[in-house]
């Protein structure tokens, strides 16, 4: 028999979960942005944070990639020549992420495992439980294109639990043994679903799919990109001329994982840290000699599209784009992956 949970019980569940997990939940911050952040453990602070949680279809401005790959991360500390590793590892509960972002996490998992293992990412992501809440309405209307990228609005696999919004309650879908154990452990918060849940869930999902209005020919774009030198340079050059190279698309993207490394020291004591970097920045490929192999702006702009749609696909058989639409939503000059896909598949000028 399938399970459900009443929305009014979510706070109580999270209060219990905090005792065992670092619990990451979307929370409304001052200014109105909704960001995924850990719940505090201290009772009073926790109460206040729970008042600000937001599990509706809010636009998580930054993807949850920073839970496992923080924007700024200490790699090790050093003092008088001695190195002390600073690898973080703790049980993490991601409660209420979207299916596109789940796909982003699964993609990053593969990347950080490939060839040399990335100790920092894998250690942070080692013990986790992911609860997806599917989108009833697209959080970034006009930018979200998960139905075209086949990543949402509901996940098919990869989650531990998935919640399906049914008004006053959520239907609970179990995607793993860990998910089942979670429901069993906190069984007091869940209840059996008596009616025809499957039919209701299917109907909710079908409606949610229709709500994603932006439809693009994503698969066709992947096929075209697989073909060498298909994209005329003029298209890239036009994007390159328009781009202001701010890096917003890269920072908000769930699958962008490039970073730079630098040392931060005072005297003989300090840290080595890594920080997100962006392939569209001019210094990204500049060598110490001053030589820069990617020295024209349009080359920096096109690099990102080729990476996501062509080379990632060729290497992993997964598209490096998950259709979340954040690049378009965050772009000050209205460039984004969906527009690029439209440009190359619809044979007309979109941007």
């Amino acid at each position: 028999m399938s399970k459900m949970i009443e929305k009014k019980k979510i706070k109580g569940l999270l209060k219990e979960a905090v005792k065992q997990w670092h619990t990451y939940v979307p929370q409304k911050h001052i200014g109105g942005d909704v960001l995924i952040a850990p719940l505090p453990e201290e009772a009073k602070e926790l109460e206040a944070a729970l008042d600000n949680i937001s599990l509706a279809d809010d636009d998580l401005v930054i993807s949850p990639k920073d839970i496992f790959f923080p924007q700024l991360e200490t790699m090790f500390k050093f003092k008088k020549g001695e190195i002390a590793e600073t690898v973080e590892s703790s049980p993490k509960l991601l409660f209420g992420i979207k299916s596109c972002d789940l796909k982003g996490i699964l993609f990053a998992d593969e990347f950080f495992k490939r060839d040399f293992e990335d100790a920092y990412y894998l250690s942070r992501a080692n013990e986790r439980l992911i609860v997806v809440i599917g989108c009833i309405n697209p959080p970034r209307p006009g930018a979200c294109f998960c139905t075209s990228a086949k990543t949402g609005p509901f996940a098919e696999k990869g989650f531990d639990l998935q919640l399906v919004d049914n008004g006053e309650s959520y239907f609970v879908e179990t995607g793993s043994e860990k998910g089942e154990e979670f429901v069993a452990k906190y069984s007091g918060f869940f209840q059996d679903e008596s009616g025809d849940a499957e039919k209701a869930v299917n109907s909710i999902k079908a409606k949610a799919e229709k709500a994603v209005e932006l439809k693009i020919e994503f698969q066709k774009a992947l096929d075209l990109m697989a073909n060498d030198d298909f994209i005329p340079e003029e298209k890239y050059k036009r994007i390159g001329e328009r781009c202001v190279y701010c890096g917003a698309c890269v920072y908000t993207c769930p699958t962008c994982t490039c970073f730079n490394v630098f040392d931060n020291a005072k005297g003989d004591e300090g840290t080595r840290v890594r920080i997100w970097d962006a392939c569209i920045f001019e210094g990204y490929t500049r060598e110490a000699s001053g030589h820069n192999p990617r020295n024209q702006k349009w080359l920096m702009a096109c690099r990102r599209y080729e990476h996501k749609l062509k080379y990632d696909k060729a290497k992993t058989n997964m598209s490096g784009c998950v259709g979340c639409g954040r690049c378009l939503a965050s772009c000050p000059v209205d460039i984004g992956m969906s527009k690029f896909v439209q440009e190359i598949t619809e044979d007309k000028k979109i941007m």
Partner: protein
Amino acid sequence: MCTCNKKNEYIPYPAKIESVKKESFDTKTFRVRFTDKNLAESFQYKQGQFMEVSILGVGEAPISITSSPSRKGFLEFNIRATGKVTDAIHALKKGDALYLRGPYGNSFPLEELKGKNLYFIAGGIGLAPLRSLINMVMDNRDDFKHVKILYGAKTPADMCFADELEVWKKIPDTEVWLTVDKPCDAWGCSIGVVTELWKETDVHPENAVAIVCGPAIMIKFVTLALKKSGFAGKDIIMTLERYMKCGIGKCGHCNIAGKFVCTDGPVFSYEQVKAFPEKEHVI
């Protein structure tokens, strides 16, 4: 503590500088040895690989290993002072600490080179990564046929490994040809870019492999000249330089068309390089 199975690749190991030798007006060769005796003795690498070399508090830079794996116990790095990290390394003296992690990248295909005539063609500090292979060849001289080293630099003062060029010259079946763009009074060798040496000595593709390293523009003209001399793409091998921040295929900077120079390279054949899209400006 790290909970993944393998060691944390980003943690460097301490090493001590054993000697510093000034090579050219802006490059020095640092001979270093891991502080941990067991590591110093058991450490293995291949000709053509590089390491991430750092000073704690200053930063880390990818540097090719210029010593030969045939000479054990120590590592040598030929470094040009050309940025924050390399400037700071140049200020170090014998006994100072450096931190190393690696070795990273693929290597020159030693087995495939056996029984071949070898042309080493280098520009400036490009001789540093080739020197690892050259000394490997010199230490196993009977395994290889005729060796020609064609080396060009801006001025005589830009030439690295001057003593060793003299040593190699005296080894049987080994020739060293030098050229500079701008000579000084005492210069007795050729004048002009390295391809000018084609006029002085035969560059013949028969049973031969050419190994090239230098600035991108030099590699471009050398490969053109080699193709003209009849070398097949697979018989031209080069080692590329890119901004390799992590060395292990994660940071993204050295990416060329879906490949990472740090893990798929830095050694590539001309054939592989020509397969990269033209707009990547590899050579």
